[in-house]
């Protein structure tokens, strides 16, 4: 029986120990479970975070991808368009969230690099095209100039009216061809291809006009007071620029409307104003034209359109290289007014009209009254308002310093100083009846700083009659003037005039002899004319 309690005791103790152990275990496992629960909660949270993060990343990756697609599909085409047409805007990043981020900056730098590369390539290609054109135009231009010389020689040679007319037509066509080739060459960076001599402004304007179809519509008015010319290096550039401006004026106005061209002299230079009454330009065109003619922009052939409109681009190139200026505005006539201003300091000079007469086709300047009005009566040579203009221009190079420095030679002696009229004609010939204004170039006034216009003065009929009256017999007339000619040798400065005068005296002698024969043989009117012809026409030979 005892064994049972022992057994029970043992059992109980074991059971207790087991229970304690179990309790301990239980407590531990419960702690463990709690810890595990906590950890799993954290893990779950982490997992959720990770999930969220992954989702955000995925969204972002999509956004970046979309941005790149946007770059390729929209922004680079925008850039390409903007490079050709500067008014096209280039779009920014598609997602405003990216604005200012690293991504935005790198994409912008991609655009920059593409833009640079494209621009460089365009310049290179354009440069190649331009040099190819230059090579071609230079040769063609030289050939056309040779053709021009040939045509001109033929015009002198052939009198047959039909041949002559065809030659004139061919010359005109050739002139137009030269103009086109020259403009293209200049746009492509070539020089005008020709250096001329110092030329009268009237000649330059008329020469420019002659290169255009419809030149008959151009009406040139010359308002110059002095015989102003353009220096050699700028003659052809100014002529080309004027040609293009006049071409625009003619092209954009009705074929029956005139184009008014005015040459004006200012204090610091001279201006040529081209006015048309045509269709005009609207604001944007005007702005573009003004940009073009300043010559500040880099010029690309590809920007001139197809076919290229070279006119204003040519003007721009020339303005940039030669230092005259042009401007365009709305004309009071309703069309466009273009003004070419030529600075006096650098590009103008005074020309001697005896040495270098104006072309007969050039309009006569306002200053020369002798051609506008019939010759005034004897003793009053055509009124020339020179002294009134004493304060005129400060022009750069004075062409004729000798004439400037030469003191005015007054009539020293002579029986009829009263008949010689105002002193500014400065007659040198001590010819009793010799008309003062028939004796070659007039010497400028002493008080005048600038050399003045010297026009050949026509001899009025009345003075010729006086000549005939004073020296009725022609032979002594020549004989009296000849020995007196060497008298002015005291003035070594005046030798050209002197020799001219000597020759004139010689001519007068022979001419009066001829006139005597003529009088005996031919009708009356030729007699008085023979004399002044020699005095007037000869010295310039």
């Amino acid at each position: 029986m005892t064994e049972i309690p022992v057994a029970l005791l043992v059992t109980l103790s074991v059971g207790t120990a087991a229970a304690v152990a179990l309790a301990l275990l239980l407590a531990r496992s419960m702690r463990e479970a709690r810890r595990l629960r906590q950890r799993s909660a954290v893990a779950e949270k982490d997992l959720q975070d990770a999930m969220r993060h992954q989702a955000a990343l995925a969204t972002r990756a999509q956004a970046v991808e979309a941005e790149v697609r946007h770059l390729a599909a929209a922004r680079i085409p925008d850039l390409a368009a903007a490079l050709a047409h500067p008014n096209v805007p280039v779009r920014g990043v598609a997602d405003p969230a990216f604005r200012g981020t690293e991504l935005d900056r790198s994409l912008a730098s991609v655009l920059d690099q593409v833009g640079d590369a494209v621009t460089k390539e365009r310049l290179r290609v354009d440069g190649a095209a331009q040099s190819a054109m230059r090579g071609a135009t230079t040769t063609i231009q030289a050939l056309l100039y040779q053709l021009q010389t040939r045509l001109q020689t033929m015009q002198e040679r052939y009198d047959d009216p039909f041949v002559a007319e065809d030659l004139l037509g061919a010359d005109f066509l050739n002139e137009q061809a030269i103009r086109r080739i020259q403009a293209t060459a200049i746009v492509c960076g070539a020089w005008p291809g020709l250096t001329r001599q110092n030329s009268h402004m009237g000649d330059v304007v008329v020469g420019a006009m002659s290169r255009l179809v419809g030149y008959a519509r151009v009406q040139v008015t010359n308002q110059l007071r002095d015989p102003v010319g353009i220096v050699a290096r700028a003659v052809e550039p100014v002529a080309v620029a004027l040609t293009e401006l006049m071409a625009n004026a003619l092209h954009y106005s009705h074929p029956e409307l005139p184009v008014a061209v005015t040459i004006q002299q200012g204090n610091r230079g001279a201006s040529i104003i081209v006015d048309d009454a045509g269709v005009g330009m609207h604001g944007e065109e005007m702005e573009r034209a003004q940009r073009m003619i300043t010559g500040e922009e880099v010029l690309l052939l590809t920007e001139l359109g197809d076919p290229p409109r070279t006119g204003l681009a040519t003007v721009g190139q020339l303005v940039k290289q030669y230092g005259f200026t042009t401007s365009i505005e709305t004309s009071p006539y309703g069309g466009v007014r273009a003004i070419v201003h030529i600075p006096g300091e650098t590009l103008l000079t005074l020309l001697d009209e005896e040495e270098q007469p104006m072309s007969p086709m050039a309009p006569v300047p306002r200053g020369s009254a002798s051609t506008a009005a019939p010759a005034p009566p004897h003793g009053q040579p055509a009124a020339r308002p020179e002294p009134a203009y004493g304060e005129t221009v400060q022009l750069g190079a004075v062409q004729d310093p000798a004439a400037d420095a030469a003191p005015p030679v007054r009539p020293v002696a002579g029986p009829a100083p009263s008949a010689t009229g105002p002193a500014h004609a400065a007659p040198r010939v001590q010819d009793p009846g010799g008309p003062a204004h028939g004796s070659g170039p007039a010497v400028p006034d002493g008080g005048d700083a600038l050399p003045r216009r010297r026009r050949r003065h026509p001899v009025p009929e009345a003075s010729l009659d006086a000549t005939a009256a004073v020296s009725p017999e022609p032979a002594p007339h020549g004989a009296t003037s000849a020995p007196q000619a060497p008298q002015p040798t005291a003035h070594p400065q005046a030798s050209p005039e002197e020799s001219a005068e000597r020759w004139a005296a010689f001519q007068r002698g022979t001419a009066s002899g001829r006139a005597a024969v003529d009088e005996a043989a031919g009708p009356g009117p030729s007699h008085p004319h023979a004399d002044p012809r020699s005095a007037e026409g000869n010295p310039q030979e």
Partner: protein
Amino acid sequence: MNPPADNRRLVPAYLATTGRARPSRNTLDRLTVLHGASDPATVSGLRPEETRLLELLRGGALSLAEAAAHLRLPVSVVKVLVADLVDAGRLMARAPIPDAELPERQILEKVLNGLRTLKSS
């Protein structure tokens, strides 16, 4: 510095007559003598080249070729100018005075031979 200046004409001749070279009258030639009409009163309404031609002739008569040389224009063009001005009554043109009769060639040769014999004897 600059290339040598070219003497190339700046103003072409066709500008004087707007391309015409067939005068309205065919009586003109290089030696036709021109002189201005007696009344030089009205010079207005003329083109510059016509004014210049009349101005040139105001001093006296010139042959057509001389006038062309003074104007530095081809003779064919000046003919047109002159014909226009004659038509307008501003200019007179008359045929050239013929050369005086020259001695016959045979006589001249005889004189030459005579002179040579004189010299050699």
